């Protein structure tokens, strides 16, 4: 029963991811005075890609063909371990938050390898930049995660959310810093403005798009879907770790429905924040990204220090 519920939650996660992406697009369109496409447009795009015959470039090896499946599978697995609407599901025990970072790294590795498989200049460029960005973003993310883990005394996501939920409203300086750091990392890792632009096909500016330039058909569908799930993963992480209220702590139907509604609301609001920031900022130069991620890292370090100095001090009376 609980396993069925866990699988159901994962399926919901996968199914809802394109919706979040189109909601975000809608907000951006609004802010830029454009007309938005239907909320269901991503699903139509996926269906269209699914029906197209994919093309394999001549120099491609099996890595190029296998990568989309591995990218998708690792992202789905990551989605399985992040509590969406309910905590204490058995899948959350398979892997903790450090393994979650590992899943992202696994998917990224194959994506990057696929980008280099063809031997085009763009593929290599995108791969190099992606690895650079991620090798700076990963430590920043781990710093933010460590802050959380040291407060909650666990790296298990479900337990950590329970802890934050049960202690009620506590103004933790460390959480403010960790939240800031994680937001910056999420923007970098999901390829949003100001680090990358998901809508560009301009040679010099793209990172993620450059890697997947040669993909078509169902493989492109899988990769696009995986990146939508990844966006939602970061959203759920931020929403449920820092604002876990509303999440279902038992498996009764009212609690579950309440949990789904709560996460939907939180994600919708988070998307508004992200859309606003994308409308306000311009994409930055690739060599400014290090300063940006350095700042995220600084926030992580400060979060950890403030946890140690401000929150857990042991004064001996």
């Amino acid at each position: 029963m609980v396993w069925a519920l866990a699988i159901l939650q994962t399926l919901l996660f996968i199914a809802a991811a394109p919706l979040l992406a189109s909601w975000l697009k809608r907000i951006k369109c609004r802010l830029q005075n454009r007309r938005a496409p239907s909320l269901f447009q991503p699903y139509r795009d996926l269906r269209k890609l699914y029906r197209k015959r994919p093309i394999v470039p001549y120099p491609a090896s099996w890595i190029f063909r296998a990568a989309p499946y591995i990218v998708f599978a690792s992202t789905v697995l990551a989605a399985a371990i992040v509590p969406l609407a309910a905590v204490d599901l058995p899948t959350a025990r398979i892997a903790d938050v450090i393994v979650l970072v590992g899943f992202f790294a696994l998917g990224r590795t194959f994506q990057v390898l696929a980008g280099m498989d063809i031997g085009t200049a763009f593929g290599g460029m995108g791969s190099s930049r992606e690895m650079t960005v991620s090798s700076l973003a990963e430590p920043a993310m781990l710093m933010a995660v460590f802050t959380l883990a040291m407060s909650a005394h666990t790296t298990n996501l479900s337990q950590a959310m329970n802890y934050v939920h049960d202690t009620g409203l506590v103004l933790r300086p460390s959480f403010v810093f960790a939240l800031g750091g994680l937001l910056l990392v999420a923007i970098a890792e999901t390829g949003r403005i100001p680090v990358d632009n998901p809508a560009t096909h301009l040679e010099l500016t793209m990172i993620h798009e450059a890697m997947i330039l040669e993909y078509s058909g169902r493989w492109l569908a899988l990769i696009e879907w995986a990146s939508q799930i990844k966006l939602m993963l970061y959203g759920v992480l931020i929403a449920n770790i820092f604002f876990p209220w509303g999440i279902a702590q038992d498996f009764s139907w009212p609690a579950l429905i309440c949990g789904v509604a709560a996460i939907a609301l939180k994600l919708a609001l988070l998307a508004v924040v992200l859309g606003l920031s994308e409308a306000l900022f311009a994409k930055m130069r690739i060599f400014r990204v290090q300063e940006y991620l350095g700042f995220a890292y600084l926030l992580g370090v400060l979060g950890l220090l403030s946890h140690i100095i401000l929150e857990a001090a042991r004064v001996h009376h």
Partner: protein
Amino acid sequence: MSIIELSLYQQAILLLAGLIALTSFLMLGQSRLVRLVKVFAAQGMLLAATTALAATVLEYPHLYVSAALNLLLKGIVIPLLLQRLIHRLELHRVMDTVDHPARVMMGGAALVVFSYYVSLPVVENSHLVTLNAIAVSLAVVLLGMLLMITRRQAVAHVVGFMSIENGLFFAAVVSTYGMPMVVELGVAFDVLVAAVVFGVFFFQIRASIDSLNVDRLSKLSEVEP
């Protein structure tokens, strides 16, 4: 003793302490003077918020006055003054870059740990919040000094100097609920005068050596390098 057991007021004080430390770090990393002054203004406003919070919760009405003074002087007047100076001296396009930003930041983080370590025995018998506030204010003071050491522009030195004063003021508000009114007014006035005097000095320095880069000041030395 962890943060969960504290009252909401104390948590809020700690949060503000953390944010003030953050602004000090941000100042350390800013290479543009205009933004440096903006961050400094934010620090002043956070300080004013801390004072106002203390005034509300602890019901010390005279703290309202110092909160207002803080907001007015450090949050608005002095930053505007510096802003105008920067524009008039045409420094707003000058990059005052730090030589080794990573090392300076690491040094800053080490200073925070150090100030915590130093303040541990000092406040052995006092409350958690006091200890932390003193640690943070010491860190802000040290970071302000670090800012002055690592910068070349005289304007940055003034900002560093004022942020040191901010650190001291924060400790005063949180641990002893503010200083006597006379002292506070005196200090506020001093700071304002200092800002004006500095402004005059800037023009003098620039008129005589055609730059505000303090490294050039060593040319006044009698000893040939």
